[in-house]
């Protein structure tokens, strides 16, 4: 897909999530099942809900029936560790009432407009500032769930960095047959300029966003890695501030992991990777400028980090060193946190037509005079062709099983994967690895016999180019909607900062599809977001009352 940010107008969900989306949508009319999950009896629930009612029943009072169907509900499906929090939350929502909720939600959205917390959607001639719709019913993660997510994210980033160091170095992973050479070296995002150029602490992916979903059984799955310039972290923090301002009564007394530390951590990581041993290296954030749809986030991060927000024209390379133009002349720059794609960074090396970049930047970098984060060439690691191999890559470098699995992916270049795919075409989502933007995807259960036959022939003609995945139903969360409070699908994007070590911002961005039955969580497609609460500690885990 073109660019990994998801605040751009052009972007539709990439193939992986699209497949998941369409897959889950397909079954929504079907089964009529409610809770085919093992129902975990929980004492808090039975006590609070005399007569055996569940949280779903309380939500019914908000209008229409709240029915998550067979999807995992992030609030009402009972889980260990959450203790009384879901119950409290639902009761507090009930206390506020639907009308007041709507009024406050709308006031909160006005607040976002006044504050300019917006992303820009470009059409042919106009640019419209839109807010990311905000849903006031938070998504809760227990401390135990967060432990798993945090460790899995750190594990994955570790593997991504080792992989990148390897493929831009000796290439053991290819020589040992873990991943086919053409997927790596033939990848359009592989940057030969990066070969034999070690980076400080072996960190290529300084900021990573990993898209995670939860399936019907309640298990987390990694949908996608975003190792280039992932967006969205500003909304995590702004959403929390908005909740604190607008819904303090929902949060009262509930201990949550804070989200305020992101800017400081990012700045520290940027300082750690700076060349030389400056006591106080000059960090800048390089943005494409005010016309970029994620500009608000660039501003937000520059402010949180306390560093200048620069555009290409502010920087100049002289004698292989990078400087910024200030009122008193040129001032040295040591680390550039760039929110600009590889292609645009340096017209001397990449796109010669780039007006956004800095001529000579790569030269200065290769001389070791400046650090660039994320490193150039990380796009090969978050490519969907490579994604399929991530479980093996983790095993190869770390000798560990992935703590959170990929969505099951069958690789057709391998005999077993091909056989399984061909035998189950009518149940699977098939997709070409080389294409972007959702081209060439076939949703098995929705395809006609003829279409499946065509797919079979296409795959057989060039199996290397194909993968297949099952359809997964994303979990849902209760969301303020036209009909009252209804289930809406959501995902999670935690953010991982890596300098010397990795640190994960507690929670992450919960993106929610605001339309009923929709699984498109993208902002440009009407998706919104929720505050993500990570409980500071769990209940009922053997601690004193």
């Amino acid at each position, binding site marked *: 897909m073109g660019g990994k940010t998801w605040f751009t107008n052009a972007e539709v969900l990439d193939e992986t999530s699209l497949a998941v989306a369409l897959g889950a949508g397909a079954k929504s009319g079907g089964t009529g099942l409610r809770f085919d999950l093992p129902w975990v009896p929980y004492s808090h629930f039975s006590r609070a809900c005399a007569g055996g009612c569940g949280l779903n029943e309380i939500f019914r009072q908000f209008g229409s029936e709240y029915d998550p169907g067979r999807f995992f509900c992030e609030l009402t499906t009972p889980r260990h560790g959450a203790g009384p929090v879901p119950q409290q939350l639902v009761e507090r929502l009930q206390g506020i009432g639907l009308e007041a909720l709507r009024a406050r939600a709308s006031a909160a959205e006005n607040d976002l407009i006044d504050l300019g917390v917006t992303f820009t959607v470009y059409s042919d001639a106009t640019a419209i500032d839109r807010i990311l719709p905000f849903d006031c019913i938070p998504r809760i993660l227990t401390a135990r769930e967060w432990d798993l997510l945090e460790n899995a994210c750190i594990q994955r980033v570790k593997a991504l960095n080792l992989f990148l160091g390897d493929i831009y170095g000796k290439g053991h992973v290819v020589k040992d047959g873990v991943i086919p050479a053409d997927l790596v070296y033939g990848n359009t995002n592989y940057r030969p300029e990066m070969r034999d150029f070690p980076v400080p602490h072996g960190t290529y992916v300084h900021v990573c966003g990993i898209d995670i979903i939860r399936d019907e059984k309640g298990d987390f799955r990694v949908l996608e890695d975003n190792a280039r310039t992932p967006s969205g972290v500003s909304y995590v923090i702004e959403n929390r501030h908005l909740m604190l301002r607008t819904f303090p009564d929902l949060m009262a007394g509930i201990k949550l992991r804070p989200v305020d530390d992101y800017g400081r951590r990012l700045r520290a990581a940027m300082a750690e990777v700076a060349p030389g041993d400056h006591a106080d290296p000059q960090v800048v954030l390089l943005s494409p400028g*005010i016309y970029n749809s994620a500009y608000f986030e660039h*501003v937000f991060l520059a402010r949180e980090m306390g560093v200048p927000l620069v555009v290409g024209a502010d920087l100049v390379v*002289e004698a292989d060193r990078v400087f910024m*133009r200030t009122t008193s002349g040129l001032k*040295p720059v040591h680390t550039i946190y760039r929110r600009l794609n590889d292609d645009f960074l340096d017209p001397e090396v990449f796109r010669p037509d780039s007006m956004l970049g800095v001529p000579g930047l790569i030269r200065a970098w290769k001389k070791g005079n400046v650090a660039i984060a994320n490193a150039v060439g990380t796009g090969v690691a978050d490519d969907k062709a490579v994604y399929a191999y991530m479980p093996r890559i983790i095993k190869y470098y770390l000798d560990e099983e992935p703590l959170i699995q990929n969505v099951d992916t069958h690789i057709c270049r391998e005999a077993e994967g091909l056989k399984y795919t061909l035998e189950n075409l009518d149940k699977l989502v098939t997709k070409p690895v080389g294409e972007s933007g959702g081209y060439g995807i076939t949703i098995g259960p929705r395809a006609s016999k003829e279409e499946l036959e065509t797919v079979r022939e296409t795959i057989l003609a060039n199996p290397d180019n194909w993968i297949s995945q099952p359809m997964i139903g994303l979990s849902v969360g209760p969301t303020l909607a036209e009909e009252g409070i209804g289930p809406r699908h959501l995902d999670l994007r935690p953010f991982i900062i890596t300098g010397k070590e990795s640190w994960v911002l507690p929670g992450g961005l919960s993106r929610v599809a605001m339309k009923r039955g929709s699984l498109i969580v993208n902002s440009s497609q009407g998706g919104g977001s929720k505050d993500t609460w990570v409980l500071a500690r769990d209940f009922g885990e053997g601690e004193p009352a």
Partner: protein
Amino acid sequence: MMRDPGLLARDAEGLFWMARYLERVENLARLIDVTQSFESPGFEAEAWQGLIRINADEKTFRERGFSFDATHVKRFYLLDKGNATSVPGSLEGARTNARTLRPLMSTEMWRQLNMFHRFVSRITPEDLEGDALSRLCTKIKEGVQAHTGITEGTLYRDQGWYFYEIGRLIERADQTTRMLDIKYTAILPHGREEKRVAELTQWNAILRAAAGYHAFKRLSRAQFSPEDVVQFLLRDPASPRAPLLCVRRIESHLDDLRRHFGLVAGEEAMELAEVLRELLLEKPISHILATGLHDYLDVVQIHLQELAGAIGRAFFRDWRPETVPVSQLQIQTQVSA
């Protein structure tokens, strides 16, 4: 532990221009308000044409497809987003600069500017009719004044604040000269000047537009002359909108930038500011009135433009270090490494 964060040349320029655009918005509202009070039965169009003339907007006005009547001039300045010199156009300029400056601005400043921008973008043709117009002008003035107040109370006073102030002062000095000029272009454009200045009600209106009415009354004798009014509006050392006060403050800010922030490149600008100060003081007002106030104001405006240009050359876009060669900057880098 504390560090000098410096200031990007582009941000200095952005602050300078954001302040200019906002000052322009306030003064446009003042000019429109005073123009309305100049309307006399049967000559409404003439009064409004004067506004076009003092802003040198004849060409744009025609190109935008307007005709010279009161309604069209009001729409040109209050509704036409495509006109860069209109209230919505200038505010758009201010907000675009503010977007680039957002990392340096307080959240309060940004929020108010956003809301003000939204208010202005919703002005309707009905708001320009009859007594509604004066109320609208008041609201626009108050929008900028709220901005100025929030800025005063929240913008960090490092060098960025000085560039913001300088931009505002240059624009204000320029606008006050235009306010004076409108007296001449709006009424009796072909008559003798002494005759024109006799119309005291109009001078009162201009004094009100320049927020100087009461101060002037306190200072002047019972029988005041046009010279007194022009003297007050141009040269009073304590009148916040007088070009003389503006230029003196610019000089002081340039001096502070040099002494406190080591910005030594502003010599040319300092010299130009001094020349301008002398221009504002050197001749008796009676002499200026006799030889033509309009031409004199033109010269003042040109000097202000040159001053702005010199500041731009010194600190903004095209500046390259002349006193500190790059080789030395490198040495500094290695030393600190």
